[in-house]
């Protein structure tokens, strides 16, 4: 006989579900309206101050002209081809940098987190490398990786890697000793231990680092484009900055921000999927 875990009729379940849905949508509406209010407050006052010349539009542009600039880019394209090309280039660089940085960061974090000896020997070098200004390294990357995509990717990787590394490292260290022991007793080899215990347990740490590291991958790609390129959002921004076109600079930044938001949304989805067991709790 199966234990019946619910005694509710179908009808009751439906009513209850409906109630829950209504409550959830009420919260959504409240949040959305607050978000809109804050949005209007921020961008409205920006527009207002800029319009009244209280802040110098030369430095700060204004939301309306930024929108106009973006629309123009979208419709007429930029001097170096249509907007989407720049977007695709930057996005591609960012995603590749992000993926490589995350993979390397997780692997290094895992290795050093699990092995004290490795941590003692290589930890200091990672610390040292993390303190190097990437902008200064950019020329070196260009020397090593050439002018194309690889140098931008390398720059993105150097920013992403460290953030992921430090979190993965700590995440691995934080794994419950009891659970590790239990898995070992149950016969887990090293790979299985990683797969079943360490990675799932460190996942909160790793996923948390993804929130900031995607932004940094984007920064890396853009800074790389800044220093040498013919395409990409960084190129657009650099060109606008070179021409003292603040509006263009901000328009580029807005495109970057939107990309970051989209990526963050994706990371959140990942989170809900991979650490479902945490979310059920609430």
């Amino acid at each position, binding site marked *: 006989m*199966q234990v019946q875990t619910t005694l509710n009729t179908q009808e009751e379940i439906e009513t209850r579900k409906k109630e829950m849905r209504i409550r959830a949508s009420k919260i959504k509406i409240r949040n959305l309206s607050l978000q809109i209010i804050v949005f209007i407050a921020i961008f409205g006052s920006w527009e207002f101050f800029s319009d009244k010349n209280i802040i110098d539009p030369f430095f700060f542009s204004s939301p309306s002209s930024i929108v106009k600039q973006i629309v123009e880019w979208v419709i007429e394209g930029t001097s170096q081809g249509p907007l989407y090309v720049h977007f695709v280039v930057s996005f591609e660089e960012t995603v590749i940098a992000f993926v490589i940085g995350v993979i390397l960061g997780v692997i290094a974090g895992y290795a050093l987190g699990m092995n004290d000896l490795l941590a003692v020997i290589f930890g200091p070098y990672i610390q040292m490398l993390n303190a190097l200004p990437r902008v200064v390294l950019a020329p070196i990357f260009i020397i090593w990786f050439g002018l194309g995509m690889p140098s931008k990717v390398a720059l993105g990787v150097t920013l992403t890697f460290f953030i992921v590394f430090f979190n993965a490292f700590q995440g691995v260290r934080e794994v419950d000793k009891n*659970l590790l*022991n239990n898995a070992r*007793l149950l016969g887990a080899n090293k790979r299985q231990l990683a797969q079943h215990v360490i990675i799932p347990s460190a996942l909160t740490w790793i996923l948390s680092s993804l929130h900031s590291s995607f932004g940094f991958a984007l920064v890396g790609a853009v800074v790389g484009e800044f220093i040498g390129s013919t395409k990409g959002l960084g190129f657009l921004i650099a060109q606008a900055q070179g021409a003292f076109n603040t509006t263009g600079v901000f328009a580029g930044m807005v495109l970057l921000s939107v990309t970051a938001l989209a990526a963050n949304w994706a990371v959140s989805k990942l989170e809900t999927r991979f650490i479902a*067991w945490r979310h*059920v709790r609430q």
Partner: protein
Amino acid sequence: MNQQSPRLPDSPMIDLQGVTKEFLKPSGEVHTVLRNINLRVAKGEFCSIVGPTGCGKSTTLSLIAGFEAPSLGKVQIKGEKLEGINSRASCVFQTENAFPWKTVIDNVSLGLRLNGTSKNDAFQEARRWIEKVGLKGFEGHYPHQLSGGMRKRVALAQCLITQPEILLMDESFSALDVHTRHLMENELLKIWEETSASVFFITHDLEEAIALSDRVIVLTAGPAATIKGDYRINLERPRNVAEIRFDKQFAELHEQIWNDLRDEVMVSYASANNA
């Protein structure tokens, strides 16, 4: 009264030789938990260990499981010195041992999956065990969606499904109500008889210890606990744990061991009594 257990055949399953275990106290002093423990458990033997709270039962278990190394002496498993994790053992921990990110069925089937059993077979076997411990219908739940007693039962199923040579159990039944406990105890005995595993069973319930075991070990009160008594329980098998308590021989053994244990518990709580 120390009743020496008869010499066991060569290479007992578990063999603690002159084991001492110390911890560094926060103050920097050395805190001796166990001192000079000599203990052999034969293959297929069901051995219980009792003693006052905090005397060092769980510590002994972690030495046998290989989670920690003894400060002095050595631990041998089947005649070989134990280094690192004891691959022949499975353990039900005193604290939780279900993986919070795995559902009940994933938790229970884990041991089989790790040994390379196919997902289908492992799940089928796991379902049998989940039913055995009375959790049918909860296969898809995560541990934090279960009650304390239910989590304990997941731990049991997770541990037993692998049919280990050595079974380590730390207060596995203390979170269960009497009835469930008896059911589980009988189940355990049945499995044990089928597999002839060596069981190292920690409990604070002397009745439970006697009802289940071939031998009951009494530890002295800590610090520096050592073996005070080692009793052979020659009650007939198979036993029904619910009924055996009314056996006359059981009562005698109980009184005998309790005398020993009580003294230790008294020593341990002298301070609490005085307060």
